[in-house]
């Protein structure tokens, strides 16, 4: 049977909705289609097939946009005639989206222009505040399937200017490099027709052109090496600067003394290539923020109960002792006391518990808990910034190790510089003692310029930059290039359970026992549907397609189960004892069991188990091959035999964030440790580990700060990612080895005073080009081998 997909959103069509000879999956999609075609925007559908999203409209999701305070914070520009706002629209995914959004003015009066930035998934909207409000725009966007996300953005303008400066430096270096090459042409070709006057003119022009490179584009090398020397360290910039000075000094001497043309082209090319390499290495993923603000997890506003009714307030303005109302799927923004009779809340993000928990009147509930089912009322105990979660968050911020950029090439350059200096000085003193003063200076500068570590300085940025780019194709987003080096050295891998190795918020429900008829199933559904118990919520969600009946009598007995009376049936759902079950359940410990009895007869049981990610066991097999793996969970004990098989004794349950942190610190003493987690409860542990990976099933949603952000879909490729990082490191070693080989050859010629300008002009580009192609090609082939067989 072929499935028909919706013309608008591409979902499978179950119930047919037609409009204009097209088939749709739901009325909402049909509505969007008509809305668009009426406004002459049908091109939306011809640019890509089924480009839309099923729109979900939550009634008061944008209620906070009625508050002028909240709106003012969002606006980029404000006047009486026009306001400009930039909205993050995570749903933007294809060219049709750009088309539709940029034609938004056809859908609504008052919208002036929309400018989409695809890579940031952002739309800059200018509108006339007298004719349309931002709330109306948000509702319109949601209606056509692009729900704006009002989470706070972290991209600072300061970041932006440094990026522009980098580009400009590369541009200046490129300009000077190209012109120097052009002016050096007569020298390359040894043209005899060009008179000496011209030759010296060209040489002086070259000096003029090298100055911006030295003092503007290359200034960061000087600054970096000075600051490295100040803390008595040798970074990769130190030998570079040494080489640059040698090249510049020697070239100046040759030009001014009229003995040669110098090596300005080499110097300019070196700076240009180095800057380009660093640009690729530092290219960041704009759409991710690796440093998160806690507030972006919370809603912006909340319903406050007042003497006259309900009022919407920003969470910053909430005070202690205020009464607030939280609805289904909403997050409690502050530590609070439950005022309603009983509510159910999902704490998986805060504590790591997989199953939702029930709270009764008077119980304390932490900020960050998500309400499930019935809405509830709460009394604020502590404001958001003083809540348990905020304290935890502040600790995360302060406890993190400073990222030390003690990189591989950094260490290498330390030894390298010492060695080069030693050789240069011994060559110098050798010729000096033999009374060859000219030869002594010649050898000194020749050694410094020929061993200039351009090749080795280029190899790491190029290899790492390329590796970062390739890994992002596989859903691994790295904070910076140095993370790869750290990943390669990992000895211990610690995994969180809920949301990391299991799929967040998904519970597998299986039924065992005598088959239930449709009528019986609907009886079960009607019974659990009225209950607020976490297990009932899961069951009713599973059975939601069955028709519901109204029970005549209904009783929930705490700790036992539910009994409901229907016209001619009595349904008991709950513990084994309560339903008089004598069935033995297999492996009861790694899930929850709910028994069903109808009219006093035990029918069977539902088994509720959090679902492990597909392919998890294979991945654990691979991971445990060359590292120690640990399971660290805030959830209750889980004795799944497969978990036991892979983790053995390395499983810890019921851990709070502090416990997790201490465990990581203990492990870190015997080797580099990687922590993989997803919730706030893992936040501190992620920060103190050598490599913290935040797993997120939806990269637009909230996740804690980390070194790597991993798309949940690609979780099982963690093993490949680690082994790829090791290969990348091997490629860098190979590059360093190759450039070392070039240096030995060069050094031999330099020490024996055989370095001619032609020799230098040939050897230097060749070494750079071969090393860079080895770096880029090597990382690419390793990627092909690890990820695409």
């Amino acid at each position: 049977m072929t499935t028909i997909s919706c013309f608008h959103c591409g979902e499978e069509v179950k119930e047919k909705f037609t409009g204009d000879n097209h088939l749709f999956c739901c009325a909402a999609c049909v509505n969007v289609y008509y809305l668009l075609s009426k406004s002459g925007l049908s091109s939306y559908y011809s640019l890509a097939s089924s480009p839309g999203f099923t729109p979900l409209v939550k009634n008061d999701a944008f209620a906070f946009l009625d508050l002028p305070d909240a709106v003012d914070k969002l606006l980029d520009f404000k006047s009486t005639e026009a306001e400009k706002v930039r909205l993050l629209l995570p749903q933007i995914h294809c060219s049709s989206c750009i088309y539709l959004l940029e034609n938004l003015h056809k859908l609504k009066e008052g919208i002036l222009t929309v400018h989409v930035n695809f890579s940031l998934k952002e739309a800059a909207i200018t509108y006339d505040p007298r004719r349309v409000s931002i709330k109306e725009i948000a509702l319109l966007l949601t209606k056509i399937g692009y729900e704006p996300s009002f989470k706070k953005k972290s991209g600072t303008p300061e970041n932006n200017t440094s990026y522009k400066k980098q580009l400009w430096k590369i541009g200046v270096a490129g300009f000077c490099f190209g012109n120097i090459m052009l002016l050096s042409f007569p020298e390359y070709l040894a043209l005899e027709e060009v008179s000496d006057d011209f030759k010296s003119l060209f040489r002086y022009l070259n000096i003029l052109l090298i100055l911006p490179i030295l003092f503007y584009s290359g200034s960061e090398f000087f600054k970096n090496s000075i600051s490295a020397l100040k803390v008595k360290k040798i970074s990769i910039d130190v030998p570079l600067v040494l080489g640059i000075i040698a090249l510049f000094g020697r070239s100046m001497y040759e030009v001014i003394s009229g003995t040669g043309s110098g090596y300005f082209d080499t110097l300019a090319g070196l700076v240009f290539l180095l800057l380009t390499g660093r640009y690729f290495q530092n290219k960041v993923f704009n759409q991710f923020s690796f440093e998160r603000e806690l507030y972006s997890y919370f809603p912006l506003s909340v319903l406050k109960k007042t003497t006259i009714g309900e009022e919407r307030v920003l969470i910053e303005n909430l005070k202690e002792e205020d009464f607030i109302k939280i609805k289904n799927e909403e997050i409690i923004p502050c530590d609070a006391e439950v005022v309603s009779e009983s509510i159910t809340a999902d704490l998986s993000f805060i504590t790591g518990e997989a199953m939702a928990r029930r709270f009764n009147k008077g119980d304390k509930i932490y900020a960050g808990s998500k309400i499930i089912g019935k809405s509830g009322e709460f009394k604020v105990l502590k404001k958001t910034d003083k809540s348990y979660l905020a304290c935890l968050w502040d600790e995360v911020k302060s406890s993190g190790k400073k990222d030390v950029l003690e990189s591989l090439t950094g260490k290498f350059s330390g030894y390298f510089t010492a060695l080069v200096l030693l050789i240069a000085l011994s060559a110098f003193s050798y010729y000096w003692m033999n009374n060859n003063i000219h030869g002594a200076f010649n050898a000194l500068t020749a050694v410094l310029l020929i061993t200039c570590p351009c090749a080795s300085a280029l190899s790491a940025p190029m290899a790492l930059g390329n590796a970062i780019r390739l890994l992002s194709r596989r859903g691994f987003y790295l904070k910076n290039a140095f993370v790869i080096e750290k990943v390669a050295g990992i000895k211990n891998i610690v995994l969180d359970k809920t949301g990391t190795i299991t799929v967040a918020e998904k519970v597998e429900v299986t039924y065992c026992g005598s088959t239930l008829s449709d009528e019986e199933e609907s009886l079960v559904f009607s019974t659990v549907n009225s209950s607020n118990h976490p297990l009932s919520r899961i069951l009713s969600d599973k059975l939601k397609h069955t028709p519901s009946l109204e029970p005549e009598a209904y009783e929930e007995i705490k700790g036992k189960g539910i009994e409901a009376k229907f016209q001619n049936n009595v349904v008991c759902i709950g513990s084994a004892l309560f339903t008089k079950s004598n069935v033995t359940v297999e492996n009861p410990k790694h899930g929850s069991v709910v028994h069903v009895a109808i009219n006093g007869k035990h029918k069977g049981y539902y088994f509720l188990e959090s679902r492990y990610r597909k392919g998890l066991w294979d991945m654990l097999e691979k991971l445990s091959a060359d590292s120690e793996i640990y399971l660290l969970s805030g959830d209750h004990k889980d004795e799944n035999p497969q978990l036991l098989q892979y983790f053995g004794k390395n499983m810890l349950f019921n851990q709070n964030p502090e416990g997790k942190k201490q465990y990581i610190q203990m492990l870190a003493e015997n080797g580099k440790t990687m922590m993989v987690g997803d919730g706030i409860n893992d936040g501190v542990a992620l920060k103190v580990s050598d490599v913290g990976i935040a797993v997120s099933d939806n990269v637009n949603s909230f996740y804690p700060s980390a070194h790597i952000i991993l798309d949940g879909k690609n979780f099982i490729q963690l093993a490949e990612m680690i082994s790829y990082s090791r290969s990348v490191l091997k490629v860098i070693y190979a590059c360093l080895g190759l450039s070392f080989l070039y240096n030995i050859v060069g050094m031999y010629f330099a020490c024996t005073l055989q370095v001619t300008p032609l020799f230098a002009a040939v050897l230097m580009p060749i070494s750079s080009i071969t090393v860079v192609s080895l770096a880029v090609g090597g990382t690419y082939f390793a990627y092909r081998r690890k990820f695409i067989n």
Partner: protein
Amino acid sequence: MSVLFLLIIISLTVAAFFVGCYYWAIKTDQFEDDYTPSVRILFDDELTKKPKE
């Protein structure tokens, strides 16, 4: 041969002009988003007939 003087001045001017363009492009955020404009340029030709404005 003295024409070289002129040629060098011209070549440097041309190159400087392009550096100026590059600077302008950076200033006006043209490197901010390198995907959307490539799509946007195709929208000018409406794929279906336009309704009356």
